[in-house]
């Protein structure tokens, strides 16, 4: 098993997307199936961007097993008051500046869930958010 840890800073758009791209690259190098790699990369990418857009700072931890990939994003931030609402497609509180950069369509969390075989989310208002996604091979 290999663990990779990425630090992510809020509003740091110059590096946004780096985690997703790196995860994709590494999984490809290791030889994971195209589809598994894609799902894991999408999940990692969306988790990273949620920290960039919505939180102050956080960490994306990727653990790679021969059977699959586990991605955990943990952040310090405002948290999510209504998780059920946040999980709805199209729901977003992202500010307009962020839309202009092509983010904030409200599809992130639903996307992560779609890509994951196991999906967990928990959040505490005023503290932060925890998201866990597991993508399994075959």
């Amino acid at each position: 098993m290999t663990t990779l840890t990425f630090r992510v800073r809020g509003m740091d758009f110059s590096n946004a997307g780096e985690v997703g791209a790196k995860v994709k690259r590494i999984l490809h190098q290791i030889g994971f199936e195209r589809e598994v790699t894609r799902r894991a990369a999408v999940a990692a990418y969306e988790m990273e961007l949620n920290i960039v857009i919505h939180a102050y700072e956080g960490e994306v931890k990727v653990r790679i097993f021969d059977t699959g990939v586990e991605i955990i994003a943990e952040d310090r931030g405002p948290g999510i008051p209504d998780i059920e609402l946040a999980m709805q497609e199209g729901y977003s509180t992202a500010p307009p500046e962020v839309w202009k950069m092509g983010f904030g369509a409200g599809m992130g969390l639903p996307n992560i869930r779609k890509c994951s075989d196991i999906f967990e989310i928990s959040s505490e208002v005023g503290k932060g958010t925890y998201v866990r996604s597991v993508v399994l091979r075959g």
Partner: protein
Amino acid sequence: MQYYHSVRLDVSRCIGCTRCIKVCPTEAIRVTGRRSVIMEDRCIDCGECFRVCHQHAWYAMADPLERKDDFDISIALVPPSFYAQFGPEVEPEHVVSALKSVGFTDVFDAAYAKEAMTRAYRMFMKTEKWEAPLISPACPAVVRLLQVSYPDLLGHIVPMDSPIEIAAKMAKQESDAWSDCSFRRVGCFFITPCPARVTAIKQPVGGRRSYVDGAFSMSDIFGLVLKKLDPRKSEKIDKMATGSGISWARSGGEALSLGTKKVLAVDGIHAVITVLHEIERGKLRDIEFIEARACTGGCIGGPLTVENPFIARVRNRMLSEHRRAKSLAVPVEWVEENYPKGYFHLAGTIPPRDVLRMDSTIEGALDRFERMEALLQELPGYDCGACGSPTCRTYAQDVICGQAAEGRCAFQSQADSSDSGERKIRITCRQLAERLGFEIAVDSESLDDEVNGCCCSDMLSDVMATARRGYIWVTVQTHPNIVAVASVTGVSAILITSDRKPEDRTLVSARTHGVSILVTTKSSFEVAGRLWSILNQ
């Protein structure tokens, strides 16, 4: 599968200076034994290596001119970048005439086919489903870069043949139409500005044979044509492109020809990589078409060109402005008739080249990946290239994949292989256990001793002979006798490997004798490898 590639090294000229390894976009070159070695399957023939080589050791393997004599009819396919090699007084018609004097039966203007491509792109974008941004199939080095390094983006490439293939197809059909029946063989030869095109002709993506029968280096043909140029001799060809097709020779020309604003043109292989990164990061969805060229300036900057690319660019711009026309030379009806027949479409799909995989199995690759990361920690991160690999990361990967010898880093403290007992860093047994995730089965004082060596054996007599005070003893033995051996030799701890559990009597005996026991799921082999890495750091 054997990959053909046209960039070659003249070993007698190479001095192993490491300039080329640093610029190779796919990290395909290493220096070993004081000379460069190319990893054939990774090379994309972009020619960056020969641009930087002071020794002129790199060269492109193109065809010899005599090859055209194997055919009854030889047609020169001339790209617009060729016209830009000559002075402003030389018109394409002069070049056509001179090429015939050199010995070609006929000349076909490749820019004409590029205009057909422009029309075909428009039809593709109108009639088919595609994912933005589309990437141009025109630059063979870029296509190969995607195969090697960005396989997930292959689906973005417009699934059409390159304009040169289309040109050859058109030229041959034209020629068949007028050839009399005594002409049996028609050969098309491309005057190439780059080695990548040579490769694309010898081994086209998609597997089908190329319509082009050979490629001559632009710099070779340039000299021959220059001698035959005559201001009084010029010859018109009826299928000559307008300014639009001609502009494809410089970067931006292809993108511009589409007539939409949502295009992006990028040139220079390293700049191309930055844009591909953006696409990978999910950006650029608002761009419809990306024209990417491996050479700075576009094809006029090809490694086999003669003229300075900035001067060639001006020439090309002037020529295309001069020949600007309201509509393209290729009739829209012709494309509308042939496009649906699949005239432009690629026969197969473009397959990825899985050359970056670290191992044939996932387990093996994960294992290697982890070791690579560990080794990387010991390297300085200067990416100096002195070891012969382009970066510290590639060096670590080379070592772990058995492709480079260890100890080539000038900065890494060298592991001394002469004495297994010699200690390089100070670390206690307990710290080691923590770092490598060993479980502590019996915890006694000796765990806080410094480790000064290791003995890896399952034969008690051997251990008696070789183990010393302060060693870690690595074994799969679990019976109580090991405690006695440990206390006689004074080893700091017994490490039981391969997920074996010490017997209860062993544990009891160890506690009474003050012998420490550690346990791990890893094998003796792996443990030895990891211990060594730490103790000899």
